[in-house]
């Protein structure tokens, strides 16, 4: 049984093939990493899977449904969520409200109940505020429950994004460079958080440049180069693959 199945995926930008002939699948309940040199197409692949881009060709199946070309807000309903390489925080809102937006699909988003402040809306909001606070504690943001997002440090915002993505209650969570911009001790903490998230039964897919993090957490690794699949397998398999060493780590990479 597979959770995500990508078949013969292509994406071209003005004639340049960003993703080509890509076929792979992801099993539920594991931590996957997608690695590759800069420009290999990792973020493009994320944007295709999460519906921000439409593929030029090929199909994407998620949880036995064909989700090719569906917009992101529909994919959220299917149980697909993500974070961003360059943070996409709602800086005009409180930290708590950022997480509450993640619960949007669970709350009553209809106009009239909100306009007249129906008791059911108020009750549900209060209930989800409690859950949002618990979720913030889960990612280690218990000190920021009452903070404005614009007043939070970078490392905390990265966690806030993860909390918001988890509020969607995804089956699969895609993390685009969760460790970028973090110092080694913060990276270690994110490592622990990713394992905790996977422990909750969420399938995690990582794009990451910090190789130590990749080796430490990944059950399965997909290597991209120039938009094509270069190799696939467990950490040790990928590490000993000569193509990977040459293309990704460079000739000097053998010493690492």
């Amino acid at each position, binding site marked *: 049984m597979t959770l995500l199945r990508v078949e013969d995926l292509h994406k071209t930008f003005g004639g340049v093939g960003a993703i080509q002939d890509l076929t792979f699948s992801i099993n539920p309940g594991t931590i996957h990493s997608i690695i590759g040199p800069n420009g290999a197409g990792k973020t493009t692949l994320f944007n295709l899977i*999460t519906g*921000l881009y439409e593929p030029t060709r090929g199909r994407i199946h998620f949880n036995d449904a064909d989700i090719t070309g569906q*917009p*992101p*807000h529909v*994919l*959220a*309903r299917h149980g697909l*969520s*993500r974070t*961003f390489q360059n943070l*996409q*925080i*709602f*800086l*005009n*809102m409180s930290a708590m*409200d950022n997480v*509450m*937006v*993640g619960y*949007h*699909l669970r*709350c*009553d*988003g*209809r*106009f009239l*109940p*909100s*306009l*007249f*402040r129906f008791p059911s*809306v108020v009750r549900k*909001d209060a209930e989800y505020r409690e859950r949002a606070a618990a979720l913030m504690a889960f990612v280690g943001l218990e000190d920021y429950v*009452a903070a404005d997002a614009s007043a939070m440090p970078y490392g905390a915002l990265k966690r806030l*994004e993860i909390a*918001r*993505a988890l*509020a*969607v209650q995804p089956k699969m969570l895609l993390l685009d460079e969760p460790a970028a911009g973090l110092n080694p001790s913060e990276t270690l903490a994110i490592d622990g958080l990713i394992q905790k998230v996977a422990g909750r039964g969420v399938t995690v897919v990582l794009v990451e440049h910090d190789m130590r993090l990749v080796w430490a957490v990944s059950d399965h690794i997909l290597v991209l180069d120039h938009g094509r699949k270069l190799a696939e397998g467990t950490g040790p398999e990928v590490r000993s693959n000569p193509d990977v060493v040459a293309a990704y780590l460079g000739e000097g990479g053998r010493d690492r």
Partner: protein
Amino acid sequence: MGFWQPRRAGILALAAVIAVLPAVLPNAFYYDVVILVGINAIVCVGLNLLIGYGGQISLGHAGFFGLGAYFSAVLTGTYDWPPLAALATGAVSVGVLSFIVARPILKLKGHYLAMGTLGMGIIISIALNQEVDITGGPDGMPVPAFAIAGWEPSSEQTWYWIVAALLMISVWLALNLIDSPVGRALRSVHGSEVAASVAGVDVTRYKILIFVVSAVMASFAGSLYAHYTGFITPDEASFFHSIEFVTMVVLGGMASTFGSLVGAAILTILPQLLTVLHDFEMLAFGAILMGTMIFMRKGLVPSLVDLAKRARP
């Protein structure tokens, strides 16, 4: 929760101001200014939902205001409809019209959205000017009194209470909306459209929704204005009037409902006060606006709230 205090305090403060004002307003002229403040404030509360919370600009909302005014004027004046029915028909028609324009126009962003809404407002203004047989053209047209089942508000005082009550309701509904799933969705669209959509927010739907809501509120205020003043011209739908509304929202403070009230009050009252300066009236007006925006960039109310917070942490 702490969040509740400012909200309740704001509504109580507004109620207090409304209750006290009649005791200090010396004559009908002052009532007239305050009533116009109230009507403008209703437009601005709606427009702020679109601009301040939803993060979308509109330079054409006077068009909706003007349409509301002319629906009331034409239906009651030419066709003898009851004013309430005319007002409702105007609001529904403007709602439908804004819904139709919303989808294509809200695909635009930033400067382009400003240009798109600007064009929309100008088209409405031109139509009102040109359809002389229906609207009377640039000379304007008279509007019958706001009669409800034989009763009509005759004095400024009566109008004052009508507008005050409607403003209170508008503010209450706007505050409800802001602190709700719909309001959070709107603010998230302002913060980051891609993050909002990934979180499950149908960005297009909420943009259209709030555009229609703000347009209907403008139409509603336009109908009130028509009946109150008793005479309207296509100037109510002009580009400059649209800019005035946006300036009220920005001056008072984007994403601040009470800021919209303050902005509407200042921009309505200030020109009256500055008449003592004669030839230098517009100069002083512009200087005050520039000064405020340079030194209080977030707008009056949010800047003052920040100041108060810093003084008493």
